[in-house]
């Protein structure tokens, strides 16, 4: 058991609530849902922390942010001290404070959480990061140039972290990104209302300030290869952080009908291409009145909530299992429900029905029940015979997962891959190819922002070691 440092003090049992836009108002706009703590609330929340000596919360954070220390500084009103403390371990706190699944990570292990609400660690972290962005970010010190060059392929959270760490160590870092902006899923996937794009771009700007060169519009595997980067273009090491961008489909009849999108297309059109500002922005999106989103993760929640904001009258999450098994962040599922997203649990489609012009007019589904637990420990959904019914919908968004994009794996010689096409990397992020490191979703399969960042940091340490010994 962990003990508190100080003698008993009065504990406020509930977390300070996160101020948010009213559910019915926000369901119609793309501005950020959670508006953030004020200075008073953040100090009040920080004071709930018991400063446990054994720091159980830290073991839940994949990058081991010194949580008691930064929260202690916030309690004293020292936000500058707090953000420096966070940044020792976490390069993108404004992002993590917003999107980490805290209930499964840091806050899961908080001592307070045993009897009461855990400390709002993510919310405090977010406040500190926003405070820094508003008051001016201190550019970190950069070591003298080492003369070594590292290429980073993919600019998601893993690539951004790896680039920042290596640049600070004095290495020349060039980042190649396929799309026209850096940020990966943070830019094209996670919606503006959950993670404002300006926050992500501020972090990208900070990288430029410490000398990282960012080459957008650069698809590695097409204009060049990993091998050519090392052999012809003089890079001493490469980090591959290309993510899991290949959308899976259900492989049911009707999936190529007009009105069926992958979540990636639906969210990319809306976020990256700003289709919600059409026609002031040129990229269109088209949806009907009743949208069905297939899946139960963050991607599905984001799609269902985006559909409402784009004007859908009804937006459904269609999920094979039950509420309990929803893999989404708890707060996202709650927000979705508050905004009016409807849930069709224990339901899975068998066919998308279309009219003679090829447009979706409905979806044939089966009802499911939960059977024995499967390998993942979750109870396996089993179809109920004869339970087929027709769902009255006119747009479908498929959000059942993504695999690794094969462009880089396919064009890199001697890179060991798993059966599913993920890159094999050891605990030091080293691949089977000397000098080539990999991390994030392309290694683990679709996971989380903070895990990708953790991998980016591990890779940076390994690359530094590798370059120093060369």
């Amino acid at each position, binding site marked *: 058991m962990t003990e508190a440092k100080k003698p008993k003090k009065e504990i406020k049992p509930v977390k300070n609530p996160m101020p948010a836009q009213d559910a019915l108002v926000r369901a119609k706009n793309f501005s950020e849902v959670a508006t953030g703590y004020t200075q008073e609330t953040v100090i009040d929340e920080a004071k709930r922390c018991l400063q446990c000596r054994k720091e159980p919360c830290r073991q839940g954070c994949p990058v081991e942010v010194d949580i008691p220390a930064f929260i202690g500084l916030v309690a004293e009103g020292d936000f500058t001290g707090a953000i420096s403390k966070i940044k020792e371990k976490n390069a993108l706190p404004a992002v993590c404070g917003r999107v980490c699944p805290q209930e499964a990570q840091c806050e899961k292990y908080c001592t307070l959480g045993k009897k009461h609400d855990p400390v709002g660690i993510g919310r405090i972290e977010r406040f500190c990061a926003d405070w820094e962005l508003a008051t001016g970010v201190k550019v970190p010190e950069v070591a003298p140039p080492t003369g070594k060059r590292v290429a980073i392929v993919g600019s998601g959270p893993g690539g951004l972290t790896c680039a920042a760490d290596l640049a600070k160590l004095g290495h020349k870092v060039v980042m190649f990104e396929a799309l026209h902006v850096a940020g990966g899923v943070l830019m094209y996937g996670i919606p503006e209302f959950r993670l404002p794009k300006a926050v992500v771009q501020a972090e990208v700007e900070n990288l430029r300030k410490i000398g990282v060169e960012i080459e957008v519009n650069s698809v590695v595997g097409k204009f060049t290869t990993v091998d050519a980067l090392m052999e012809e273009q003089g890079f001493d090491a490469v980090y591959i952080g290309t993510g899991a961008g290949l959308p899976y489909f259900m492989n049911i009849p009707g999936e190529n009908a007009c009105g069926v999108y*992958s979540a990636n297309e639906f969210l990319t059109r809306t976020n990256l*291409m700003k289709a919600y500002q059409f026609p*002031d922005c*040129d990229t269109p*999106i088209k949806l009907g009145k009743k949208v069905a989103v297939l899946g139960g993760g963050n991607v599905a929640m984001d799609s269902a909530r985006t559909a409402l904001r784009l004007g859908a009258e009804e937006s459904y999450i269609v999920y094979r299992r039950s509420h309990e098994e929803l893999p989404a962040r708890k707060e996202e599922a709650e927000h979705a429900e508050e905004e009016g997203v409807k849930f069709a649990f224990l339901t899975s489609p068998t066919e998308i029905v279309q009219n003679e*012009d*090829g447009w979706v007019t409905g979806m044939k589904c089966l009802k499911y029940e939960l059977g024995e637990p499967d390998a993942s420990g979750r109870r396996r959904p089993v179809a109920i015979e004869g339970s087929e019914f027709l769902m009255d919908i006119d747009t479908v968004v498929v959000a059942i997962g993504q695999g690794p994009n094969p*462009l880089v794996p396919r064009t890199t010689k001697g890179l060991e891959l798993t059966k599913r096409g993920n890159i094999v990397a050891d605990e030091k992020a080293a691949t089977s190819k000397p000098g080539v490191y990999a991390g994030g979703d392309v290694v683990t399969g679709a996971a989380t922002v903070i895990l990708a960042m953790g991998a980016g940091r591990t890779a940076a340490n390994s690359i530094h070691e590798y370059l120093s010994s060369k």
Partner: protein
Amino acid sequence: MYKILEKQVFSPIIKELVVEAPKVAKSCKSGQFIILRIHEEGERIPLTIADYDREKGTITIVFQEVGKTTTQLGQMEVGDYIKDFVGPLGEPSHIEKFDGTVVVVGGGVGIAPVHPIARDLKEAGNNVIGIIGSRSGDLLFWEDKMRDACSELQVTTDDGSYVRKGFVTDVLKEIIEAKGKENIPLVLAIGPQPMMRAVCNLTKEYGVKTVVSLNATMVDGTGMCGCCRVSIAGATKFVCVDGPEFDGHDVDWFELSRRGGIFRDKEQKAMEHHVCKCGSGCGGAK
């Protein structure tokens, strides 16, 4: 930013631009395409690489103005900059020395993407017969370049206003009949969907292998969104990474054309919105 170095106007709606894009020019092959975005609010649109100069680091694109982005692109001048220009994308054309005569068919703006493929096929030692066609003579371009790229060139116009009257399929049929279908190992056709479909219908009768380049709607062009999916022999493929070239006899043309119309009403709205911005009919290019 990618600078426009040269511009040619072939007709009021068909234009050529030479763009400075050294990274693309260094590595591209015929059959591949680029995606560009004119400005910050712009849409990403795919255009085929019609020519390239590795030394000068340039890419040539030829396009037809059909909607907002292509119209705005047509209004850009030498010295202007295109915001984003990414490539090469897609798989290159399959080039080898075939037994017999290869026929390449370019319809309308499709003459441009056919050109580098014809040139490569001829350089690989093939006897290449080219057929180019358009609605009328004033829409025709690159006749000289195609004459150089092919061993022999035939020209046709729908209305007979230039050389001969007829469709490219009429000429193709004559060639197949004259040479014998067994002596034509490959037909490659690029142009508007109805034209490619007509070519495929014809060659299917003769059992002559036909490759087409599909112009599905795209967003990223890297296999990330699935917008460009098509059914090829019953299996779903992504045009941007698995294509753009496919065996034309395996393509589900019906589905392709329906998916191509998904955003039609929105595209019209974009066009109207864009024209009315200044009201003078300039098109309001930013």
